Structure formats: structure tokens, C-alpha cells
């Protein structure tokens, strides 16, 4: 019950901070952009848009959300409430990825994607990975500038190989690279099962790292100035 409430409240916060309005506008903009592209470009363009925005929004927005909570010292209160770190991480991750899935679905439909369900699965998987990364970074840093700097190397090691892979410019063994597995799914094409296994393993590792980071943040924030 608490977990469901938490997701609903997280969605309410997102609405209050204008996430839904922003993504409503961006979805229309992206759909219009895709509509204007030649037919041959549409599917790949949609994959790039989905991977770089709705799927990756967790990386940027989770940073903003956690930094905001830290600045308002709400995390101090979480540390002395029955809320568990696992509930906190999953509610934030799921609440944010609900918007990602809606945006991805609209874009996939607008280009008549080969497999909407695969696009959604890829968006969801990459969305969780990016959101967990956002939480790990935001839990450790103190300012938005630090956060932006910390996300640059992540963008390079995820976006560059994934876009190159989309255009077939990467060697065969790179099919198992998690960002490429997600890109294959988002593009609605066949993906590496071994790669999916690696992606799942990476998700477990990221979750563990996020758990450690948030626990440390709560302990530090909650006890800092009692």
C-alpha cells in the first residue's frame, strides 16, 4: 500500500514540477519532427529520439529530483521514517519510467514501428538503467553543476556506441554491450540474448550501487544536523 502511494505521490510531484507538461510538449514536437522526415529515416530517427530522451530522461531528471529533495532536506526525514531505501529507489524509478513509456509508445506508433512491445521493453530497460545511474550520481554530489559534469562521461559511453550500433558501425561483439542491446530493442529489431543477460546483470549491479549510495546519503543527511 505504502509503495503504491509512494508512486502516486512521486507522479504528483512530477506533475507539480511540470514534467508532464514538458513531455506533452516534447512528444508533440518529436512526433511532428518524425512526420516531416523521409520514410526511410523515420524508424532510426525515432529510435535515436526514444533512446536519447524518454529512455535517458531518468539520468537527468532523477538527478534533479534527488538534488531537490536534498536541498529541501526531505531526505533527512526519510532516514527516520519507515520508508525503506528499496521502496524509495523503485518508486522513483517506476514513476519516472511511466512517462518514458507513454512518450516512447506515442513515438513508436507515429512511425509504425515493427514491434511496439519490444520498443517499450527496450525503453523500460534502458530507462531503469539510466534512472539508477542518475540516483547513484545525485546521491553523491551536491550541486547541479557537479551533476552535469558527472553525466558527461556516461553520455559518451552510452549514446555514442548505441548510435554507431544503430547504423551498423560497430563490430559484431558489441551486440552484447547493454546500451546496444537496448538500442536494438528500441529499434524493434533482433537483439543479443547474451547481451540481455549482461544488461540484467548490470541492472542488478546498478541497483546495489544505488542502494548503497542512497543509504549513505540518508545516513549522512539525516544525521548531519539533528
Amino acid at each position, binding site marked *: 500500500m505504502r509503495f503504491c*502511494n*509512494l508512486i502516486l505521490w512521486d507522479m504528483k510531484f512530477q506533475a507539480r514540477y511540470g514534467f508532464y507538461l514538458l513531455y506533452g510538449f516534447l512528444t508533440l514536437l518529436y512526433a511532428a519532427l518524425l512526420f516531416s522526415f523521409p520514410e526511410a529515416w523515420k524508424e532510426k530517427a525515432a529510435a535515436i529520439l526514444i533512446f536519447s530522451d524518454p529512455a535517458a530522461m531518468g539520468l537527468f531528471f532523477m538527478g534533479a529530483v534527488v538534488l531537490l529533495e536534498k536541498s529541501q532536506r*526531505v531526505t533527512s526525514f526519510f532516514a*527516520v521514517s*519507515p520508508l525503506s531505501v528499496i521502496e524509495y529507489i523503485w518508486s522513483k524509478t517506476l514513476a519516472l519510467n511511466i512517462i518514458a513509456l507513454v512518450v516512447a509508445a506515442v513515438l513508436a506508433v507515429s512511425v509504425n514501428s515493427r514491434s511496439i512491445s519490444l520498443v517499450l521493453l527496450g525503453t523500460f530497460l534502458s530507462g531503469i538503467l539510466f534512472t539508477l545511474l542518475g540516483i547513484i550520481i545525485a546521491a553523491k554530489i551536491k550541486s547541479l553543476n557537479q551533476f552535469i559534469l558527472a553525466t558527461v562521461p556516461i553520455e559518451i559511453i552510452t549514446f555514442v556506441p548505441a548510435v554507431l550500433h544503430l547504423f551498423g558501425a560497430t563490430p559484431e561483439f558489441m551486440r552484447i554491450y547493454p546500451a546496444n542491446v537496448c538500442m536494438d530493442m528500441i529499434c524493434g529489431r533482433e537483439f543479443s540474448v547474451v547481451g540481455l543477460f549482461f544488461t540484467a546483470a548490470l541492472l542488478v549491479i546498478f541497483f546495489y550501487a544505488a542502494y548503497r549510495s542512497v543509504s549513505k546519503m540518508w545516513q549522512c543527511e539525516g544525521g548531519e544536523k*539533528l
Partner: protein
Amino acid sequence: MIKVNNLTFSYTKKSFIRDLSFSVFEGEIFGFLGPSGAGKSTLQKILLGMLPGYQGSAIVNGTECREHKSDFYESIGVDFEFSTMYDKLSAKENLLFFSSLYGRKSRSVDELLRMVGLENDTDKRVSDYSKGMKSRLNFIKALVHDPKLLFLDEPTSGLDPTNSRLMKDIILEEKKRGKTILLTTHNMQDAAELCDRVAFIVGGQIFALDSPHNLIMSKGAAKVSYTWNDNGEQTASCPLDRLSEDKLLNKLIAENRLLSIHSSEPTLNDIFIEITGRTLV
């Protein structure tokens, strides 16, 4: 309610909290008094289960603090000295959100807001609240799940005298409702007025632990100060229990020459300085 035995804790190799032992009984208001860096916050963090690496024993509500699970906080309410609210949400939304974190039945949010005089500002965003309003809202947030044990950190800080009085009355009312309250404050007047017992903490050690009344009475008798005119205003004082031996005072009374006379007891602050040799900064 709280039982601490031979508690020792250190952030470095040197002990910060040293061999503390004390108990807090159910239904009492217990005050931690001490200067900054005395170990009050560390002690509270240990009691709130946030610093598990201590030696000795610290049992809260029957649970050893280092072994607590998340339901440990179901019966604990914490009022931080600083605001811990979502600025973009209204006061009522904040209370509803934080009450949703608990499995216990919540108290009426409207009733709590009315209790601290915020009934006309329930739908106002917290970012538009004044410091005093935030302080009152933060306080009732600690009560929203009707906990058995309350940790209050400077609950009257930043409040005007009227609201400070209101807050103290609510604290006493919560005590009547059976809550156990741990109060951390620099305000000796608040401590003397609210606490059943206080502990003076300096350098991670308890220097004294008793009721404010006993502490005051054990360390100094009340004095009588008086003034009279003798080529300008003169002042003298003598212990209350030796008034009859003060010949000057008796003479001045007989000659009706006293300008003023009043008795004064040492304050808790005086006692704190006398016992610990420190001031509450």
C-alpha cells in the same frame, strides 16, 4: 522506553561518547542540554538507529538500536530544527504525503493544522510560509502518525512568544496523552519549564542528570537582594535562610529605608555553568 548502558561511540580512534548510562521513562519529557559539539546530536543519531557502530547498549521501545528494522520508526516522531518539507506542495499535501509513509492510523491533518494555528494556510505552498510557520508545520509533521516517542530539536526556535507558548502547551498536552518526549534545546527556560528531567552533556559525558528543580535546589540557596539610599543607591544580598542574621537588612527594615527587596533563585543556566564549567553556545 529508552535504556542506555555503557554506551561508547567514536568517529575516530578517540571516543566521542564515553560510557553513557541513563534511562528515559515512559511518559516523561527528558531534556538533553549541552553546548554545540557536546555529543547531543550523536547521541540522538544513535538512539534513532542511524549510527550502528556503537559499543554498549541503547534500547529504544524494546529494540536494540543497531538491530532496528524499518518498522522501528512507526512509533517514533522526529522534529528536526530545520524544515524537511517539499516547498512546492501545500502544508496539507506535505502532511498527507508524510503520513502515507506510515502504517499506523494517522491523526487528522486538519486538526493538527488547527492545533498550531495554520488552519487558514492549509492550501498555501510551504515555500510561501514564514520561518515560524514552517517550524510549526515541521512540528506537527512529527505528530501525524501519533508516535509513542518524540524527538524534538529546538521546537521553539524562531518562534514569537505567543507561538512559543502555544508550542510548549502542545508539548505538555502530548505528554498528557502519554507520549515520551526527548527534547534537545539550548533554551534553559524551556527546559526548566517542560522537562521532568534533564541531562547536562559536555564532551560526550553526562555531568548531571536530575529534575530541573532538584538541580537548582541542590546547587544554590535562594538569595535576597535589597537596595537602599545612602549617598546614592546601595545594593547588598544575603542567603534567604540567613535573613535574620543580616543586621544591616534588619536595621534598614526597622528604619523603613529599603528602596527595593527581592528574592532570586539560581537559574538552570547558572547551574549548568557551575557544574560543567561551560556555557551553552
